[in-house]
């Protein structure tokens, strides 16, 4: 690992200037979102953007939250994201371990069967999945909102590829010492999987926190709305200032950024090592 990128001169802080400028430009929309959320409503469509509000309006936040049942929407989204993330962590690890280290008849077929579902996202199977959930009487419920998102093939693939790299000798040794499969998974395999688990967590959390189409299809009652549905309706009602919409957008962004910050160290290794090899 060391010395691999020493081909470039160590330029110190000076080399950072163009890079920092580029980063600033890329992240400008995020900065815009944050400052706009404190802006006065009538300043939105001025001919030049006022980057630092002349008068700060932190009351945009409580005002926005009070205009619709946003606390409930956020709670619904949180329950769904936590459920989906946990489901992915548990089931993708189990299946990934079995497919990487336990030979069983038909394992190739199972692997291909699971990977093939990558071409069946909800956008494609929307109508029949809706009809199935309708038959289960799961419309307007947590089961319905979480159910079809509970396991993602990407996660199974990620865990399998990562566990493949763990030396089988460790596992065999633990088995000869009399450890059961659950103990092997918990004490031998999982501690070495942290980077992969971090990647899985951030993507599962982001994708379920982001989910729009599925709640849009199955939710018809206000108390089951998630925050993206609330946010879109909020914008459709006249008289709701866009600055307050940005306040909700900022609030929605914070949880994902926090998860990202907490996992950052493990994530960096996860992206490097898993290499997402084609």
């Amino acid at each position: 690992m060391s010395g691999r990128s020493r081909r470039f001169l160590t330029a110190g802080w000076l080399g950072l200037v163009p890079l920092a400028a580029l980063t600033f430009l890329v992240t400008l929309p995020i900065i815009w979102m944050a400052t706009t959320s404190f802006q006065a409503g009538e300043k939105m469509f001025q001919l030049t953007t006022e980057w630092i509000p002349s008068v700060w309006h932190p009351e945009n936040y409580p005002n926005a939250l009070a205009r619709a049942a946003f606390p409930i929407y956020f709670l619904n989204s949180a329950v769904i994201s936590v459920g989906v993330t946990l489901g992915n962590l548990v089931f993708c690890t189990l299946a990934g371990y079995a497919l990487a280290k336990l030979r069983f008849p038909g394992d190739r077929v199972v692997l291909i069967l699971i990977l093939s579902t990558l071409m069946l996202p909800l956008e494609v199977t929307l109508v029949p999945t809706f009809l199935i959930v309708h038959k289960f009487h799961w419309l307007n419920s947590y089961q319905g909102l979480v159910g079809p998102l509970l396991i993602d093939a990407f996660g199974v693939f990620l865990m399998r590829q990562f566990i493949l790299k763990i030396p089988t000798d460790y596992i065999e040794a633990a088995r000869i010492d009399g450890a059961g499969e659950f103990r092997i998974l918990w004490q031998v395999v999982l501690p070495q999987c942290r980077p992969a688990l971090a990647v899985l967590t951030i993507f599962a959390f982001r994708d379920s926190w982001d989910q729009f189409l599925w709640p849009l299809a199955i939710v018809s009652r206000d108390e089951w709305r998630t925050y993206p549905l609330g946010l879109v309706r909020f914008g459709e009602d006249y008289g709701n200032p866009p600055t307050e919409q940005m306040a909700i957008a900022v609030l929605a962004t914070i949880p994902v950024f926090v998860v990202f910050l907490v996992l950052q160290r493990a994530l960096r290794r996860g992206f490097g090592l898993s290499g997402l090899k084609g």
Partner: protein
Amino acid sequence: MAARAGLSVPYRWRLRLWALAFVLPTVAFFLVFKYGPMLWAFQLAFTSYDMLSAPRIVGIENFASLSRDPIFRQALGNTCVYIAGSTTLLVVVALALAMALNTRVRGARLCMSAMFLTNIMPIIAVCLVWRFLLHPHGLVNQLLGPFGFGRIDWLTSEQLAMPAIIGVTVWRFAPYFMVVFLAALLNIPAEYYEAAAMDGAGGVTRFLRITLPLLAPVMFFVVLVSALLCARIFLMPFLITGGGPGGATRVLSMLIYETGFSYMKMGRAAAISVVLFAIMLAFTLVQMRLFAASEED
């Protein structure tokens, strides 16, 4: 393998049972929520169904009427343009960003993390922010103004709406592929570049002769993942332009939603799903080929 021979036969059977127990929930889930719905979609595609009365078999009528429908044709074309445009730009921009970050400069990692934020902020926030930024008085036009551009109507012009959506897509996803490229760039041994530099190869030659060929497998992976991602795009056109103006940004996933849930034509929506599935199947088959090849080494 040697250690495995030491295990007794009943123990090996116990391991197989464990494996089945570990895999079974996932397989059952995919049968119920992926393969079941897809088979049902194939069946529904040959029926007319409004959820009020029982499905009525209509043969290939759904497909026949779709092939004559200008709205469907437009959406199919839009989807293809969107996939091709976004994927091409994503590869170029992500690779450029990765190469800019591939230095020993202090703070490069921090820049990478900051740019990655565009990839993890909620997509709904991305759409709402860009809808304002692309407004005629918005930030994009303000920044372009000094370069002699007038007030451009990004979202209400039939020619510019799709490029604008593609631009937002690139902003959203390029940092993800940037990280993938960066991991691959770091794996290229520095000696290759040193040897080339000693032979007097310039920067461009080194890029064309060393970087690009060694990056080819990763690039192929990025193209496929990006194509699958773009084929299913829904929220960006749905929220930023609503599919307009004049259907210029309506993609297949939006047409499925409108047909099924606004017009309650479940059979026709299923037929469109089958078309979208065929597109994704084509990309997936290529991907499977690659995966099978990489498993063999």
